[in-house]
C-alpha cells in the first residue's frame, strides 16, 4: 500500500530533522532485509507464540449478542496477550530488529503506559537498556504502569512540556533520538511518525487480522460483515483491518475518542475534527487551529489522547475504504461497564470505544451478520480512573 517514499496517497512521508535522516534510512534498509529473512521470522514467531501467547483467541460473545439482539459479536482478545495489550506484537518485532541492527538501547513514548510496559518488557527479555517518555499528566493517570516499567528495569521520564500527554511524549522521544542515535532505536508505538515506522508497525500488527480471518473462517465459514477497533495513532486498528482491506464487503470501522463530544474543544477525534497537516514526521490529519498550532486534545483515554492519526488511516478514510466514528467519554465508560458485567471481560478504556460502537450498530443488523471487535487491551489499568469518573473516591 506504500510506495517507495512511504506515502499512503498524499499522507505519510519523512518530515524530520536532517539529523535523523540516516537513522530512518538505515532502519528501512534493515527492515527490508529482515522482513524476508527466514531466521528473523522464525525467532519472531517463537517470541509471539511462546512468550506473548499468540494466537490470541477469537471469542464468541454469546450473552452480548443475545442482549443486543442483532449481529453475532466476536471479540478478538488482544487483552489476553502478554503485558495485556496488542502493543507487544509491534514491540517484539522492533526490539528484535533493533538487536539485529546492533542497537543496545530502546527509547519509547507512551500514553496509557501499555506501549511503555511492552517496550520495557522486550528490553528486559533481550537485555537492552530502556528509557520511556511519558507525559506527566499520564504518569498520574496511569501510575500503576509507571511502576511496572520501573519494575521491568526501564527508566521513566515524565514529560513536562506542552500538554504533558502523549503528543509531548512523542516530541520528547524524537528529541532524545536526535541526541543519541548510534546505540539507540526509537521503538515507536503506533502506525505514525516518519516512514518507515507506519509500515513497520502495521506489518508487525497485521498478525491480528491474519488471525481473525483464519479464526472466523474456521468458526463461521465466512468473513465478518464489520471489523471494529479503537483509533488513537491507530496501531491495533490497522492491525485489525489490514488483511481485510481487499475484502470490500467487510466494513472497517475505526472508533475515535470524541472526549466530551466532537462539537467541543475537549476531543481527540482527529479524522472527525482535524485537517490535513504535517507533524511528528508525517503528513496526515491533525487537530489544529487556523494557524497550524497543534490543538491540546482531550480524552478520558490516555492511549487515544493524541492530536494526529496514522497516515494509512487518513488514506483509508480518503478513499472511503474505512470509516471513522466518534465515541464520547460517556459512551466508552458505559461500554466499559457493559462488557465487564455482560461477558466478565474488563476492556481497556481505549478498546471500550470500539465496544460502544458495536452496541450502537449491532441491534440494527441481522442475526446472520457478524461483527468482530478488537479488544486491544485489558482494563485493569483503568479501574481506578473510571471509578473516580463515576464519582467514587478510589485511589491506587
Amino acid at each position, binding site marked *: 500500500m506504500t510506495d517507495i517514499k512511504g506515502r499512503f496517497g498524499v499522507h505519510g512521508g519523512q518530515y524530520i530533522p536532517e539529523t535523523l535522516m540516516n537513522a530512518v534510512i538505515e532502519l528501512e534498509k534493515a527492515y527490508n532485509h529482515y522482513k524476508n529473512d527466514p531466521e528473523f521470522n522464525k525467532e519472531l514467531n517463537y517470541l509471539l507464540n511462546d512468550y506473548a501467547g499468540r494466537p490470541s483467541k477469537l471469542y464468541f460473545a454469546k450473552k452480548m449478542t443475545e442482549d443486543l439482539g442483532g449481529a453475532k459479536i466476536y471479540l478478538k482478545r488482544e487483552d489476553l496477550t502478554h503485558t495485556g495489550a496488542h502493543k507487544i506484537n509491534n514491540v517484539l518485532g522492533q526490539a528484535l530488529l533493533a538487536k539485529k541492527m546492533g542497537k543496545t538501547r530502546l527509547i519509547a513514548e507512551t500514553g496509557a503506559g501499555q506501549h511503555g510496559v511492552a517496550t520495557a518488557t522486550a528490553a528486559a527479555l533481550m537485555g537492552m537498556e530502556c528509557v520511556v517518555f511519558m507525559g506527566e499528566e499520564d504518569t498520574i493517570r496511569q501510575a500503576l504502569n509507571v511502576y511496572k516499567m520501573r519494575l521491568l528495569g526501564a527508566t521513566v521520564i515524565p514529560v513536562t512540556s506542552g500538554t504533558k500527554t502523549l503528543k509531548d511524549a512523542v516530541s520528547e522521544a524524537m528529541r532524545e533520538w536526535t541526541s543519541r542515535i548510534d546505540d539507540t532505536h526509537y521503538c515507536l508505538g503506533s502506525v505514525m511518525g516518519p516512514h518507515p515506522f507506519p509500515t513497520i508497525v502495521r506489518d508487525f500488527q497485521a498478525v491480528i487480522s491474519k488471525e481473525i480471518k483464519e479464526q472466523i473462517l474456521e468458526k463461521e465459514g465466512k468473513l465478518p460483515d464489520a471489523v471494529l477497533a479503537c483509533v488513537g495513532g491507530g496501531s491495533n486498528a490497522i492491525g485489525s483491518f489490514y488483511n481485510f482491506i481487499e475484502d470490500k464487503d467487510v466494513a472497517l470501522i475505526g472508533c475515535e475518542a470524541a472526549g466530551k463530544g466532537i462539537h467541543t474543544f475537549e476531543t481527540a477525534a482527529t479524522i472527525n475534527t482535524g485537517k490535513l497537516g504535517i507533524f511528528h514526521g508525517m503528513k496526515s490529519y491533525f487537530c489544529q487551529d487556523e494557524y497550524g498550532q*497543534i490543538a491540546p486534545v482531550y480524552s478520558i483515554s490516555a492511549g487515544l489522547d493524541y492530536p494526529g492519526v496514522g497516515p494509512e488511516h487518513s488514506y483509508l478514510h480518503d478513499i472511503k475504504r474505512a470509516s471513522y466514528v466518534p465515541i464520547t467519554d460517556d459512551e466508552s465508560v458505559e461500554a466499559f461497564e457493559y462488557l465487564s458485567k455482560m461477558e466478565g471481560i474488563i476492556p481497556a478504556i481505549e478498546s471500550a470505544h470500539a465496544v460502544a460502537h458495536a452496541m450502537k450498530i449491532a441491534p440494527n443488523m441481522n442475526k446472520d451478520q457478524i461483527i468482530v471487535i478488537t479488544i486491544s487491551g485489558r482494563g485493569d489499568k483503568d479501574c481506578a480512573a473510571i471509578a473516580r469518573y463515576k464519582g467514587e473516591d478510589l485511589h491506587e
Partner: protein
Amino acid sequence: MNKIYEALKNKKAFIPFITCGDPDVATTKAAILEMVKNGADLVEIGIPFSDPTAEGVVIQGANIRALEGGITTDKVFDMVADLRKEVTVPLVFMTYANVVFSYGPEKFFAKCKEIGIDGIILPDIPFEERNEFLDISEKYNIDLISLIAPTSDDRIAMIAKEAKGFLYIVSSLGVTGTRSEITTDLNSIVKIVRENTDIPCAIGFGISTPEQAKEMSQIADGVIVGSAIIKLLKQYKTKAPSYIGAYVKEMKDAIL
C-alpha cells in the same frame, strides 16, 4: 546574485535568532533593531509553533510564551513589514512545516515576498521532502535553506549541490541549546560542502560564548546563535533589547 549570498559571502557573518512575540512583538522589533545596529549580518526570526520538536527547552519556552502572548503568523508578518522600513539586512524565517502548510504555501510565500523576507529554514523539511515547498518558494524568490547535521555523512554532497541562500550546519547531535563543548568534526563537513558548492555556510546549535563564535567562524562563513539570546529575553523581558545589542556586539567583535 541573491541578497543572502551577497550578505554572507567573503566575510564572517553573525546571525542572531529571535522568537517573534516573546514576550511581545514590540520587544522583538526593538531587539532586532539593536541586533542590526550592533553588527548582525542576517537575522533569523522564529514564527512560533506549539510543538517545536527540533528545539531544546530554552527555545521551546520562548515558543510557549509567544503563543500565550497571542502571537499569530499574521502578526509576525505585520511585524516584519514594519521592521523592513528600517532594516536592510537579509531576514529569514525559521519555523515548522505545519505553520507554512496550514497557512497555504502559495499565500505564505507570496506574503514573505511582499514583506521582504529573503529565506526560510524549516527543520522538519529534510532534503527528501523539500519538493513540498520548493517550487512555490522559488516562484517568490525565497531561499529554502537546507541543513546539514553531524550524521549527514554521505548526504552532505547531495544537499550542498542543491543548496540555496546559505547552508545551515548543525554543530552537534540533539536539539538547540547552549553547549559547553562542540565535538563534531566540522572541518571535514565544511570541506565536503566547499567541494560541492560556493554557497556560504553558517554553523549553529550550541554556540553561546565569544570564544566558541571565534572558533566556529574560523571553520565557516558565519555563526548562528539562538538560545543565548532567548535566555536574555527570558531574564530581562521587555528590557532585553539593550542587553541583546551589547551581546551581539561582543559576539560580532569576536569573529571579525
